[in-house]
């Protein structure tokens, strides 16, 4: 068990976004969180990353509770994420974007950076090489010095995932990675995520609407509806489950 969401509830004022939901994700698994709009998927994401504090229940990562930790501390524990609409740093190059991920892993102090101590130079070289390796892995190294926002949509998505991998995570949270992509790009993205999962021995938790992509990718899925869990299991079973269908397509045989 790498991630355990333990009976979490979250309400904003009167609205209950998530109602006593719990699930566990095992190492190297690709776990899908699916459900109609407003089902609480993004809220769950934000609870795991620490942006929202759950009203009750807690999140346990590698049997250590995350409650009370600030978002950036959770990232340093090994949970990285990407955003639904790509949020690369607009004023920086692709390389610098990835280097941000290494920020907390570069071992030199503020003073050392001012006086350019040898440790600063060696650490900077180390993390620059590591970043280039990751970019190479994604075939993006030739764009290293271009402005991140000048790239195509697909390329930007790759840079965003590369940037998330820079924080050397164990759990990667993907927020609708395939959104806005044509089928061939989605196909290619799926391959990259699977390959990354094996090469960086990652566990992946993703939110997605594109059921074809979910089927192709996920080992297990959890279907949320109005904040409640209505199905957990393999994606192919989910498609036949009556409750899941009615949640998605509405109850048309309400005799």
């Amino acid at each position, binding site marked *: 068990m790498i991630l355990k969401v333990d009976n979490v509830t979250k309400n904003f004022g009167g609205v209950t976004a998530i109602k006593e939901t719990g699930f566990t994700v095992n190492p190297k698994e690709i776990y899908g969180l699916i459900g109609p709009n407003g089902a609480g998927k993004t809220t769950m994401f934000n609870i795991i990353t620490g942006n929202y504090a759950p009203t009750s229940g807690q999140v346990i990562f590698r049997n250590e509770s995350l409650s009370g930790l600030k*978002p*950036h501390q959770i*990232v340093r524990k090994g949970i990285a994420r990407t955003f639904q609409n790509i949020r690369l740093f*607009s004023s920086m190059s692709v390389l610098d974007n990835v280097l941000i991920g290494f*920020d907390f892993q570069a071992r030199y102090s*503020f003073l050392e950076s001012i006086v350019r101590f040898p440790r*600063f130079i060696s650490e900077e070289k180390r993390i620059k090489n590591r970043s280039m390796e990751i970019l190479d892995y994604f075939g993006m190294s030739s764009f290293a010095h271009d402005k991140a926002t000048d790239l195509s949509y697909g390329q930007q998505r790759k840079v965003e995932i590369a940037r*998330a991998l820079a*924080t050397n995570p164990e759990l990667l949270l993907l927020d609708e990675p395939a959104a806005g992509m044509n089928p061939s790009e989605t196909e290619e993205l799926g391959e990259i995520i699977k390959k990354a999962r094996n090469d960086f021995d990652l566990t992946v938790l993703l939110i997605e609407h594109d059921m074809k992509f979910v089927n192709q990718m996920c080992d297990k899925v959890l279907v949320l509806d109005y904040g409640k869990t209505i199905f957990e299991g393999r994606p192919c079973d989910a498609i036949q489950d009556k409750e899941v269908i009615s949640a998605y397509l509405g109850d048309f045989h309400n005799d």
Partner: protein
Amino acid sequence: MNIAIKKDQWINLAIIAVVLWFIWFASSHFDEYTIRILNNIAIFIILAASYNLINGVTGQFSLEPNGFVAIGAYVTALLLVTPEAKLYQYAIVDPYPFVMTLHANFVTALLLAGTFSALLALCLSFPVFRVRGDYLAIVTLGFGFIIKILAINNPEVTNGSLGLNDIPEFSNLYWTGGIAIIAVIVVLNIVNSKFGRAMKAVRDDEDAATAMGVNTFKAKTLAFCTSAFFEGVGGGLLAALLTSISPDLFDFFFTFQLLIIIVLGGLGSTTGAIIGTVLVIGGSEWMRFLDEPMKFLSYETTAMPGMRMVVFSLILIFIMLFAREGIMGKRELKDLFKSKKKGDK
């Protein structure tokens, strides 16, 4: 890769050598008036380069300079003025005993001025950086206001609105120019390190920066305290240049001038801050004609004192509307060469 780094280092050394030569040449050949303007420009380069760190690089809109410059100036003045001079100039009320014992040489005074400002910035950063939104501008504006009121209402320490006089004139072009070079190097080293990248990430998208493990509170506070440190040192240099300071020297106009400088130069560009300083501080001397009677195509205007200020505010609005990037945008000197190289590739 490392050939390029070597080349960059040579360029930097060449630039520093040229500037050092210019300082020597200026202080031995130029007349008093030009040297004073160069001193002003050097001090304002220190202030503008560091102010750009919090405003331009980290994107946190703050109006703090006049507060920290005041602190730096008073700390340095109290440490430099001789006890006898203090005794006779405290007219309103006798100074506290500890004020009389304060004495230090120039370098220690400047360092203490900077450190004291940086510590105060640290305390201020807690109420301000915990909360999002642009409260930073108003709190730092209020902070500058409170510092001025404290200086006026504590005659036992600051001699009140009489201010401190007979400060030994240590600031010459070597001091101001030298420290300006150090300040620019330090700021550039910070910007081109993981701390600088974190600051730029906070500017571009704070949430995404947090998602990359950046402690945004720490990044903002580091930028704020570094800015405060150099503003304190700049204040000390200014005190040792003017040889007499008083509370009304540090009002909001001081910050407004720095704002025009970094906006004109390009928010986020240290080279831009330098160019902005030369244009604004040098320019304001040249623009004195705006205050005197002017002849527009034979139409003789009477002297309109204060016209310079109107023109300054219009320039600021004009830049914001039409040339928001300023002269250098976010680019540094080296980027100019690089972009040319990339252009012809």
